[in-house]
């Protein structure tokens, strides 16, 4: 493995790990807030138990999110010093606002987790809401920074240097909105289905009321998100078609420039032969998706010099996985919403609980796939059209070893977190069963 590959993989592993905890940290506070609010309104102690049980999980996830995020803020400079030297001042503004958001989030979380017996009930409840709002804000800020890498703006590139930097223009670049809403919705959908799935499995085993309540809260958020997701994805795709035509061509495996370009579903792309086999092709639909008209021309990869092609198969498969999952989750969401009026009835159905169980990891798989589309699809650029990834690599040799180390640590950590959560759940059950 060469150093560039190792560095890219290390960045990918670190971000791919962090994003799971970041999503949970953004969304779980909202669920906790609803549970807490319900408890205050209904006085049903099950809601209180739920809020408490969730808050322990959140504390664990939050800590892992915080340390992995801290690592990231150093890693960007350890792996890509040249990139950060130029990009830091330009895309740094969202990061500096994010600092404030993190702080608020961490403070409010401290109040929410430890303040139950010390704070006024309302103050405690709203501390939960502040955690949620600050979490979503910080997510939006980092994504704005990432969007700048896809749609660099707010500077003039003169002789390898940025001049006339305008941080506001850089932050509100052409990709920030489309990425920010898609990401936020994705976080709600992924976390919601994961939580609902875990509680569905538990409910299959033990018919405890707490799980029923948990599934309802999680699905209420997730289903709205899952229905919005394909719409928001469509906007994202249109934006990519405009800003990064090579990326769109890569994730669609669209080699030839065509009018009435077909939408390609599935298939195995072959970069050498510039063709895709075994795919379903819907003529004209790619033109429609990318530009809103069946007849428009869509640029194929052939328009770009080969050194500027992103890796085609990976981006293609990842895109298919994301969209496939998006459609499936939307289906579940529709079933859920259509059936709300007979909700009690459905929750006793095994097929429904099993369906939820199947959906448990899907949202997060789609999140990872979506990020691979975005990040690998930007290659070979680290700042699209401005700076190549390979030109910003650290001179430090032996990145292979740091990559192995970081991956091993995160793998270990993943196992420990899963083990911890299963222990928490067992505890909860013991408590309930002993109370009769």
């Amino acid at each position, binding site marked *: 493995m060469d150093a560039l590959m190792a560095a890219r993989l290390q960045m990918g592993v670190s971000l791919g790990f962090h994003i799971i905890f970041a999503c949970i940290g953004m969304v779980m506070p909202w669920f906790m807030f609803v549970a807490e609010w319900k408890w205050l309104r209904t006085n049903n102690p099950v809601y209180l138990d739920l809020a408490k049980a969730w808050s322990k999980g959140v504390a664990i996830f939050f800590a*892992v999110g915080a340390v992995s995020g801290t690592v990231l803020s150093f890693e960007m400079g350890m792996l890509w010093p040249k990139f950060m030297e130029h990009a830091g001042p330009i895309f740094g503004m969202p990061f500096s606002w994010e600092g404030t958001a993190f702080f608020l989030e961490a403070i409010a979380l401290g109040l929410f987790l430890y303040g139950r017996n010390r704070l006024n009930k309302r103050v405690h409840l709203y501390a939960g809401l502040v955690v949620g709002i600050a979490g979503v804000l910080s997510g939006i800020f980092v994504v704005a920074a990432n969007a700048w890498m896809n749609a660099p703006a707010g500077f003039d590139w003169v002789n390898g240097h940025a001049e006339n930097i305008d941080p506001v223009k850089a932050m509100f670049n052409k990709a920030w909105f489309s990425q920010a809403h898609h990401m936020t919705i994705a976080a709600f959908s992924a976390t919601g289905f994961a939580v609902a799935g875990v509680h569905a499995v538990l409910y299959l085993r033990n018919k405890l009321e707490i799980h029923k309540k948990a599934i309802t809260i999680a699905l209420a958020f997730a289903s709205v998100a899952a229905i919005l997701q394909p719409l928001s994805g469509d906007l994202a795709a249109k934006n990519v078609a405009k800003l990064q035509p090579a990326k769109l061509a890569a994730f669609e495996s669209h080699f030839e420039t065509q009018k009435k370009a077909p939408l390609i579903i599935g298939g195995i792309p072959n970069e050498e032969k510039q063709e895709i086999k075994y795919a379903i092709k819907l003529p004209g639909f790619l033109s429609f998706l990318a530009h809103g008209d069946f007849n428009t021309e869509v640029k194929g990869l052939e328009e770009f010099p080969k050194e500027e092609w992103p890796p085609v198969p990976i981006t293609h498969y990842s895109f298919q996985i994301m969209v496939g999952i998006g459609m499936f989750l939307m289906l579940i969401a529709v079933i859920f919403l259509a059936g709300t009026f007979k909700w009690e009835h459905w929750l006793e159905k095994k097929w429904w609980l099993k369906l939820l169980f199947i959906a448990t990891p899907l949202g997060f798989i789609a999140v990872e796939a979506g990020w691979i589309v975005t990040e690998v699809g930007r290659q070979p650029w680290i700042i699209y059209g401005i700076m190549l990834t390979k030109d910003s690599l650290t001179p430090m040799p032996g990145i292979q070893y740091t990559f192995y180390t970081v991956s091993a640590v995160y793998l270990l950590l993943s196992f420990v977190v899963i083990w911890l959560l299963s222990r928490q759940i067992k505890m909860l059950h013991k408590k309930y069963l002993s109370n009769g």
Partner: protein
Amino acid sequence: MAEINLLILVVCLLLYVILGGADFGGGILELLTRGKAAGIVSKAIAPVWEANHVWLILVVVILFVGFPTVYSTVLTGLHIPVLLVLLGIIFRGTAFTFRHYDIEEARPKAIYSIVFQYSSLFTTFFLGVTLGGIILGKITLDYTYDFYTVFVLPWLNIFAVSMGFFMVLLFAFLAAIFTVSELNDEKHITYFSKVAKRLLLGLVLVGALVFGGAQLSGHPLLSEFLQSPVSLISITLATLALPFLWHFLNKPNRTLLRLIAGFQTTMIVTGWFAIQFPVLIKLKEGMDITLQNAAAPPKIQFYLLIALLFGVLVIFPSIAYLYKVFKFSNDSNAINNS
């Protein structure tokens, strides 16, 4: 404006050393006292540790937004010790939280404790080594030298290593002070005051080692200190505070103990900064990275400052509230995570 942002950076660093230091030191203190401190330290720290470490993130963000060459130079030349710090941060933060939240059971708890204690020591040590590397001036921008010269020499030297030990003692000392001022029962107060006094002695000794190490590593820290009035004054003040500290360790007074320890740390950081300024990183070749040549353009500094000031407006009141809710109440034992 770059000066103001730099000042805010130093204040964040200082707060990280004082607040984060007490919590890193907590792990070291547990190790030194063979677990005696465990319950006390983690109870006192749990509600605030999430907030504590955001100071470090702020330092990093101010660096790469406002002083990008500093950020990239440090993270290249000191890649190895920084990586070690990061690994330590991962193990420390997670072990601490897991210990707090995992269900009560002796064996995993013991493992979390061991990981937390040793990684606290490890992380603090390499944090000191990294700082030593920044101060010493052996970092080079010429990457055509051999691996050893570019990536090892800047931090593997007597000075940086003694900075590592200094940091360990400083953090443990801060944690001991923090613990003493959190306690209510006489027996423990006496015990931890004794520990704090020993650490203080160690700190003075290692402080001397730091100056000696600098001389040996070719960095005349002592004479630079003597030439800068500001650092001379601050180190004198820090030294003058010692007897008071000693006195209040014999007759513990919560508020004064904390204030004096905080004051001393502030003086040490000020003293260091005064001799360094306006150089931010000394380079092997002599062409130092300074405030002037590292600062991002004024427009960037302006927006950075606005974000930071807004942050100050929002954050300080909320932090004060957080500390008020959890700290200045006498029933620190009542902190239970429901």
